[in-house]
């Protein structure tokens, strides 16, 4: 138990559209342990970022239900003052778009220093500046003193993403949430940024939630993986199990969509993630995108089943799922 850093129970985050609330994160439960990277994958709109924002308490107009235990303290609907003590100190977040995540009118150094001012007010100005320089060096940006005085528009995207990381790790957080930290970067920079996150995790012994839609990143970085679809976790397992024995149709479709050598045609998952308003709340949410699977294969109220220790799959349809052959797929496509 002492190894457990974060425990989320039945989290439901809903947004108001018109005069009704729609859940973007629907009944999500998961845990993150110390020194562990939990990967969360799913396509756009599956609720990954909404989940991360819920943990950070960054939703300003959403209804958050359920529990988020951080070291035995429920932070789901905690008082803002208490939350602000944790944010940036114990729990920190790396944002996906480095181009907009920094204040354009503040010097780089001041933006990093701000989080120190907020959580370590006892530091002298000199100590703070030294620490900021140290952090800029830590994220491997050369000429730290010079960069300290620069403004965000003077830095490249990759450098800005490192500054965002420097801000997140300034107070050595126990839990680091990285929301698609490499999406906006080119491939060579991606690898460097991922290395950086991994090193920091090893140094600080922190837990990391890594949100991404890049399965390659997950395979490389994560210890355990949760696959999200339409606001729910559809499969969760350790990374080897997930890649070697994926069970849920969605996971299998995702893995099948990754280009492999000798393959001349990519698998495409039909359709798109339904919008919040159109999403059916009963039955298997993925059913609409695998219409060739018989309806009786789905559960009425799909639940997570533990198929082997630590490997959970939602809905019974996984045992009946198969990929349609080419001709059949075309036919299904024609009918829809």
């Amino acid at each position, binding site marked *: 138990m002492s190894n457990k850093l974060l425990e989320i129970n039945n989290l439901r985050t809903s947004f108001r559209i018109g005069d009704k609330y729609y859940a973007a994160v629907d009944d999500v439960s998961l845990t993150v342990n110390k020194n562990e990277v939990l990967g969360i994958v799913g396509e756009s709109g599956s609720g990954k970022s909404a989940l991360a924002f819920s943990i950070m308490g*960054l939703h300003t107009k959403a209804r958050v239900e359920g529990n988020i235990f951080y070291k035995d303290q429920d932070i789901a609907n905690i008082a803002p003052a208490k939350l602000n003590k944790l*944010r940036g100190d114990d729990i920190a*977040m790396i*944002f996906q778009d480095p181009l907009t995540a920094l*204040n*354009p009118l503040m010097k780089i150094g001041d933006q990093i220093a*701000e*989080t120190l001012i*907020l959580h370590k007010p006892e530091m002298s100005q000199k100590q703070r500046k030294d620490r900021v320089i140290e952090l800029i060096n830590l994220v491997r940006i050369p000429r730290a003193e010079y960069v300290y005085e620069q403004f965000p528009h003077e830095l490249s995207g990759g450098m800005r993403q490192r500054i965002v990381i420097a*801000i997140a790790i300034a107070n050595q957080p126990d839990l680091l949430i990285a929301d698609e930290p490499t999406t906006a970067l080119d491939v060579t920079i991606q690898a460097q940024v991922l290395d950086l996150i991994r090193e920091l995790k090893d140094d600080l012994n922190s837990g990391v939630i890594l949100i991404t839609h890049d399965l390659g990143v997950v395979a490389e970085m994560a210890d355990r993986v949760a696959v999200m679809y339409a606001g729910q976790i559809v499969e969760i397992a350790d990374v080897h199990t997930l890649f070697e024995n994926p069970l849920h149709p969605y996971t299998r479709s995702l893995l099948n969509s990754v280009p492999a050598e000798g393959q001349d045609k990519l698998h495409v998952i039909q359709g798109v993630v339904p919008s919040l308003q159109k999403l059916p709340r009963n039955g298997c949410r993925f059913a609409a995108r695998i219409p060739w699977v018989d309806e009786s294969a789905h559960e009425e109220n799909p639940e997570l089943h533990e198929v082997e220790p630590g490997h959970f799959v939602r809905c019974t349809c996984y045992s009946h799922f198969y990929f349609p052959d080419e001709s059949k797929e075309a036919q299904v496509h024609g009918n829809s």
Partner: protein
Amino acid sequence: MWKFIVRRILITIPQIILLSVLIFLLAQAMPGDALSGLVDPNVSLEQKNALREKLGLNDPWYQKYGEWASGLVQGDLGQSFRFKMPVADLLEQRLINTFWLSLATLIITYIIAIPLGILSGRYNDSILDSSITGYTYLGFATPLFIFALVMLWVFGYQLQWFPTSGSVTPGLEPGTLEYVLSKARHLLLPAISMALIQTVSTVQYLRSEIVDTKQREFIITARAKGASESRVYNRHILRNSLLPIAAFFGYEITFLIGGTVFVEMIFGFPGMGQLFIESINLRDYSVVNAVVLIFGIAAILGALLSDIILSLVDPRIRIK
């Protein structure tokens, strides 16, 4: 940054020259000249033509412009036909009056705009915001000259809180405290009237800047650092939202010019705007030219001021 400012200042020189050429050509295009109507009807056409030749009125325009412009540079704006005095002397007092009126208006404009804009933007879509936005719509819809008349009638004639015309009570010695207070009292009502109408665009602008900045991602970064709401507002949202307002400051001068023309007429305030209208009515073209030139230069300098302010407060504009 200094490079940018110097370059920006240098650009204003051709702007002002072009402005003076335009004004001069427009004045030339107006029918008639100084001899057309004012000279004794007994003077014959031949004598008039001889006089025109002698005064240089038949010279080509660029020659006349050269003379006019060289006069301008030496501070000679010509003679007012109506007031029989040098235009420069005539303008001096008017310019000072209009300057104080504009300054008072600007100050009141921002005293109203900044708190209203901040409240409206921070608590957007609340009842408070709706009432402030309602006021701005009213302000946009109300013509200044109607509003100024209503203000004059209510506060000048009905309640008699303010004097109804002039810029100072006659008979006071310049330099005394009473003189200054009397000037301020005369300024206040026209300045408030103008500010109440002019401020609405700044309120709206500030409101939408704040609403916009609130949704920017670096605000989320600031919250994720653990910054309290008040810190997020004061350190991040406000500074970024006030920036365009600061830049707008210089352009505000252009709007003020339009405003003073109306307000000075209605409040009988002896400033540039009133002089402008009077001179047009009296066909006192050398005065009209001078006033338009000064208004034009004020607008150009306002734009210059805006750019300089912006380059000082926005690091993205500075050129290395």
